[in-house]
C-alpha cells in the first residue's frame, strides 16, 4: 500500500521533472508554444526535447545500474563506476576526440561504445569464477588503467583547444545533443536496462550470501553475465552520449531504500525513476544558474553528491556495526 503510494508519487515526480526539463532554460518555453512555428517551437523540438529524453534515459539507467550493483556486491557504497565501464567508455570517447574521429557521424559514440565493450570482455575474462570480489578488483584495475590512459591522452593533446574540448566532454553534459544522439543511444540503454531488470530475484537470494543463493538454485555465473552486459551496454551508452555523470547511481538507491525497504528486487524500478528525476532536475537547475556559461551536469552532480555522501558516511558509522 505504502509502496504503491510511493510509486504513484515517483511517477508524478518523474512527469513533473520531465515537464520542468522541457520548459526550463534561459528562455522558458511554456507548453502552449511547444508546437508553435517560431523560435520557441524550434528550441523545443531541436534542443529541449532531445535533452529531456536523454536526461530521463541516462538518469534511469544510472539509478537502475547503481541499485543492481549495490545488490550484487551487497555493498551500499557501490555505484556504476566500480566496474570500470564508465572509465573505459570515457577513454574511448577521449581517444575519438583526440584522433578527430568525433567529426565523423557517430564516431565519438562508436569509439566510446568500443571502450565499454572492451571493458565488458575484460571483466568477463578477469572476473571468471572469482565472484563479486574478483569482479570488483577487476573493475578497479580497469578504472585505474583507463583513467591513467585518459590523463595521458590529455597530456599529449596537440593544442589547448583539443585538451579543453576533451576535458569539457569528460565532465558530462546534456547540452546540444540531437535527436539522432538520443536515438543512437536508446537501443543500447533499453537492452541493458531490460537485462538488469531480470536480476531482481537472484539479487534477493544473494541476501543470504553466495552459498545461500547457490543452494536456492541461483546461477551466479549467469547473474554476473547479465550484470556485466546490462551495465556495460546501458552505462556505456550513457557515457558515450553525455560523458561521465557520477553520483546518481550511488545516491538514488539509498534514497529509495529508505522508502521502499532494503529488499534488492523492490528498489530496481523505483531507483530507475528516482535516477531520472534527479538527473532531469539537476540538468534543469544548471540551465537556470545565472552566468555566462552553463555549469556542467557532471560537476553539478558532484557538488550535490559529495555532501550527501558525507551524510551517508556519518549515518553509516552511527548505525549498527
Amino acid at each position, binding site marked *: 500500500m505504502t509502496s504503491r503510494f510511493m510509486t504513484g508519487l515517483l511517477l508524478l515526480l518523474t512527469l513533473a521533472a520531465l515537464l520542468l526539463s522541457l520548459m526550463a532554460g534561459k528562455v522558458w518555453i511554456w507548453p502552449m508554444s511547444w508546437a508553435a512555428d517560431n523560435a520557441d517551437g524550434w528550441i523545443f523540438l531541436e534542443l529541449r526535447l532531445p535533452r529531456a529524453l536523454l536526461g530521463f534515459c541516462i538518469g534511469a539507467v544510472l539509478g537502475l545500474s547503481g541499485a543492481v550493483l549495490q545488490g550484487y556486491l*551487497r555493498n551500499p557504497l557501490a555505484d556504476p563506476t566500480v566496474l570500470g565501464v564508465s572509465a573505459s567508455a570515457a577513454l574511448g570517447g577521449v581517444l575519438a576526440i583526440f584522433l578527430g574521429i568525433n567529426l565523423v557521424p557517430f564516431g565519438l559514440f562508436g569509439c566510446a561504445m568500443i571502450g565499454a565493450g572492451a571493458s565488458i570482455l575484460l571483466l568477463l575474462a578477469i572476473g571468471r569464477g572469482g565472484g563479486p570480489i574478483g569482479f570488483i578488483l577487476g573493475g578497479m584495475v580497469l578504472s585505474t588503467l583507463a583513467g591513467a590512459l585518459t590523463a595521458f591522452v590529455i597530456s599529449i593533446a596537440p593544442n589547448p583547444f583539443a585538451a579543453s574540448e576533451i576535458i569539457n566532454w569528460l565532465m558530462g553534459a546534456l547540452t546540444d545533443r540531437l535527436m539522432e544522439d538520443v536515438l543512437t543511444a536508446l537501443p543500447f540503454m533499453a537492452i541493458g536496462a531490460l537485462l538488469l531488470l531480470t536480476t531482481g*530475484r537472484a539479487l*534477493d*537470494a*544473494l*541476501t*543470504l*550470501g553466495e*552459498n*545461500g543463493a*547457490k*543452494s*536456492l*538454485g*541461483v*546461477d551466479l555465473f549467469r547473474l554476473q553475465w547479465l550484470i556485466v552486459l546490462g551495465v556495460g551496454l546501458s552505462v556505456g551508452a550513457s557515457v558515450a552520449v553525455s560523458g561521465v555523470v557520477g553520483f546518481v547511481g550511488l545516491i538514488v538507491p539509498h534514497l529509495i531504500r529508505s522508502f521502499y*525497504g*532494503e*529488499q*534488492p528486487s523492490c528498489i530496481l524500478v523505483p531507483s530507475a525513476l528516482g535516477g531520472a528525476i534527479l538527473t532531469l532536475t539537476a540538468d534543469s537547475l544548471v540551465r537556470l544558474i545565472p552566468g555566462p556559461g552553463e555549469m556542467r551536469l557532471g560537476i553539478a552532480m558532484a557538488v550535490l553528491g559529495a555532501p550527501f555522501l558525507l551524510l551517508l558516511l556519518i549515518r553509516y558509522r552511527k548505525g*549498527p556495526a
Partner: protein
Amino acid sequence: MNLNVQNLGFAHGRTATLEGISATFEAGRFSVILGPNGAGKSTLLACLAGLQKPNSGTARLGDEDITAMPAPTRAKRIGLLPQGADTHWAITSEALVALGRIPHLRGAGASADDRRAIAAAMHATATDGFAHRPITELSGGERARVLLARVLAGEPEWILADEPLANLDPGYQLDILDLLRQQAREGKGVVAVLHDLHHAVRFADHIVLLHHGSVFAQGAVDDVITAQNLANVYGIDAHLSKDEDGATQLLIKGKMRS
C-alpha cells in the same frame, strides 16, 4: 530415499581436501558430521548440497547424481542453511523466509502455496511473532530461527545445516537442535555439521566422524563416540558413561598428554 556419497574425493584451492569418502545418510534421521577444524566437514556438506562438484566419486540423492541435477530441481529437494548468520540487507523476517520459496517461484508473484509454506515455516519455528520486524533488529536466537524458517519454507526433503549453532547462547542452541530433530521425526533427512560433541551425543541418530579429509568412523552414537576415537581424532581425554535413563553422558577431562 537416502543421500549418499561413494568414494568421494575433492580438492580445490584452499578448501579442505576430501579423499575416499563413502557414507549414507537416511531420511528420517538426524545425522551429524563431526571432526576437528579443517577435517572437511563443510566441504562434504557442500558436495551433498550440490554446491561443489567432487573431483572423483559420486554424490547421489537416491540414485540421481546431485551435480547432474538441474539447479532449481536440486534446490527444491535439498535445502541448505549456510554457515554464518550474515544477512546483507535489513529486510523483514517474513521477506527473508519468503526467499526460501525462490526455487518454487514461477512468474511474478507468490502463489497461495507459497504463502501457506511461509506461514507454516514461521509457525513451526515460532517466528511469526516478529514477521514484520527487520532481521537486523532481532536477537541472535531469533535470527537463527528465522534463517532456519527460510530453509523450511522451501519444503525440501533434505535439510543440510552448516554449523547452525555458531555464536548462539546455550538455550538458543537447544531451540535449533530441537527444531532440526523435529524435522527428522517428521520424516525429513537432516544432516548438520556440529562442533559440540555433547550436542552430537545428545541429538544425533547417526554420526560421521571426519579426520584429515577421510571418514574415521561412522554409525550410531555409541559406536563412533568412543574414548579411543576422541583421543585419536581430537587429542582429548574423554570419559563416557550411561546415566540412569540409558542415555550416553560425555565428560571431557582435558587434552591427552602425549
